């Protein structure tokens, strides 16, 4: 007697702020994939307080199925009255999700055929808390890497690593494409101090990993990113602020803390001598946010 494989439908949550053009290009391949799966997946687009009439555009462009029997996944829109950023919108969308698995997807992400099944399978391991596909950028590179260099956390371009086939532990799972269990995602949430800007997803991944859970990358699942995400830092000061907040939150080793403070003092001195006010402002913003913790 053949083994019955339990069906695990997925709620796809897409935080969106005035990105109709992206959705017009990237929703159809996603819906095609969900239609092929035919397991009752759903798509929730969270309108993050935009003014582009997203709800009516989606209702017109991606109408609900004509009949109940249609395998086409339903696309519904959740509208926030006030813009709060993609992290907050993602958690709101997860709260409204009807299924136990939630796929966070940036509106700039375009899925490739067959991307979802390997991700869902990766979460069969109860210790895996989040699974991320292989993310491919237009320049062929993968996600940026975070490296510890001379006492400071630096961000460098990542490599594509296109030859890997095995599921491996990842440094972090990007909010651009991340599959997690709804309840665990809602319970953890994203740290609001990282908004605006990015690294909230890195912070959540590291929090999970420090609790002994696994965050994995599934190379057989591929998602393309056509351009930078909306959550990219809008200024150097904010980018430095978030990087320092991430450092201070997760830096435990005493010797590295000492090394870090000395490096940061040197960097502040260099910024002062070179007149780089934006760097000093970034450090000051991080110190303010940390003091209010």
């Amino acid at each position: 007697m053949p083994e019955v494989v339990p069906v695990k439908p997925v709620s796809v949550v897409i935080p969106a702020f005035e990105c109709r053009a992206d959705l017009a290009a990237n929703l159809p391949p996603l819906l095609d994939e969900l239609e092929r799966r035919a397991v009752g997946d759903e798509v929730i687009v969270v309108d993050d307080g935009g003014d582009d009439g997203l709800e009516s555009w989606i209702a017109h462009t991606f109408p609900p199925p004509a009949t109940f029997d249609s395998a086409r996944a339903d696309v519904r829109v959740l509208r926030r009255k006030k813009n709060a950023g993609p992290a907050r919108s993602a958690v709101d969308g997860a709260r409204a999700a009807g299924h136990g698995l939630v796929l966070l997807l940036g509106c700039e992400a375009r899925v490739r055929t067959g991307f979802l099944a390997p991700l869902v399978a990766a979460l069969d391991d109860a210790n895996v808390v989040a699974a991320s596909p292989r993310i491919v950028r237009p320049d062929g590179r993968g996600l940026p890497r975070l490296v510890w260099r001379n006492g400071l956390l630096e961000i460098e371009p990542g490599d594509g690593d296109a030859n890997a086939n095995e599921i491996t532990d990842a440094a972090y799972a990007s909010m651009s494409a991340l599959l997690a269990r709804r309840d665990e995602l809602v319970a953890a949430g994203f740290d609001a101090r990282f908004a605006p800007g990015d690294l909230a997803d890195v912070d959540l991944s590291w929090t999970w990993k420090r609790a002994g859970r696994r965050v994995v990358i599934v190379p057989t699942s591929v998602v393309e990113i056509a351009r930078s995400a909306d959550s990219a830092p809008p200024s150097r000061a904010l980018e430095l602020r978030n990087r320092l907040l991430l450092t201070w939150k997760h830096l435990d080793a005493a010797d590295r803390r000492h090394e870090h403070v000395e490096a940061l003092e040197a960097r502040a001195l260099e910024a002062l001598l070179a007149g780089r006010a934006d760097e000093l402002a970034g450090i000051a913003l991080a110190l303010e946010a940390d003091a209010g913790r």
Partner: protein
Amino acid sequence: MPLTHEIELEARTGTQIQPHARALLERARKLEALPLEGLAARVADGLARLRLTYGLEARDANPVRALLAALPRTELARRATDLALELEAARQLVLDRERSAAEVDRRSESLKEALRERSTDLATALARADEAVSARRDLDTVRAQLVEAAREHDRLGAELARALERARAVANELDAARNRALELAADHDRDLASARADRARPDPRIELVRSALAATAERELSRAQLAELERAAAVERHGAIDAELGQVRRERDAASGELCRLQAESELEAAQHRSTIEGYERALVNDSRNAETARRELEWRRREMDALRAESSGLRWKLLGGDLAARIALWDSEAAP
């Protein structure tokens, strides 16, 4: 009209500024607009707090604060300019170093090439030196041969001188004889004169003088013949020495050839003997084996013969016994009623 900060950001990164980010961006902008010293002091205070939070010891003089206290803003600007100049000077220094390194590389290549050429010349010179040493050895050999020839020449010259001395002595004796002969001749002349005066009677002394004169002429002839004989003897001695040397060399070569031939023959003979001995050894081993086999076969046949003998003995007894049983059966049948 200069671009605003926000427009500039959008132009550079293509990133949208979302409304929720505006408050913090505005805060960043205000901080950036602060006097640099004030902003730095704020950062220095915060970093001092961070030190305490991490349980690190507070600095007696925080480097940022110390710098701020020591340097007014104009000084900061001057330091910045100085640093920029130093940076440019360092950059120039690096460029100069790179150029120097390139020049050193070029010279190094040139030196390598020169070294390669020198190596070739050195090899040629060494070959020539070897040739010179070889020529010098040849020259020494020739010189030694010349010295030997000169010694031989001197020895022959000495012998010739001794021969000449002897010839001179003979010549002196001949001169003395001639003088005596002349004196005798004078005496004879005188005697002849007196004899002429006395022609009527032949004088036996005149005959004696005549024979003496004949002897003198003969001695002159003998002296010339002696010189000729001495020259011939010298030439013959040279020839004899060369001939003897050649003969010795030929005999040596012949003896060497004979030795080689005898050696080859002896080796061949030894190989034949060895082969024969090995044949004998193999034959001996085979004979031993055959003898052992024959002994075993003899033993086996002896045992078989003993068995046959025993069997025949048994059969005989059995046959006699059978005969006895047949007789008893006959007796029984005859005795039966």
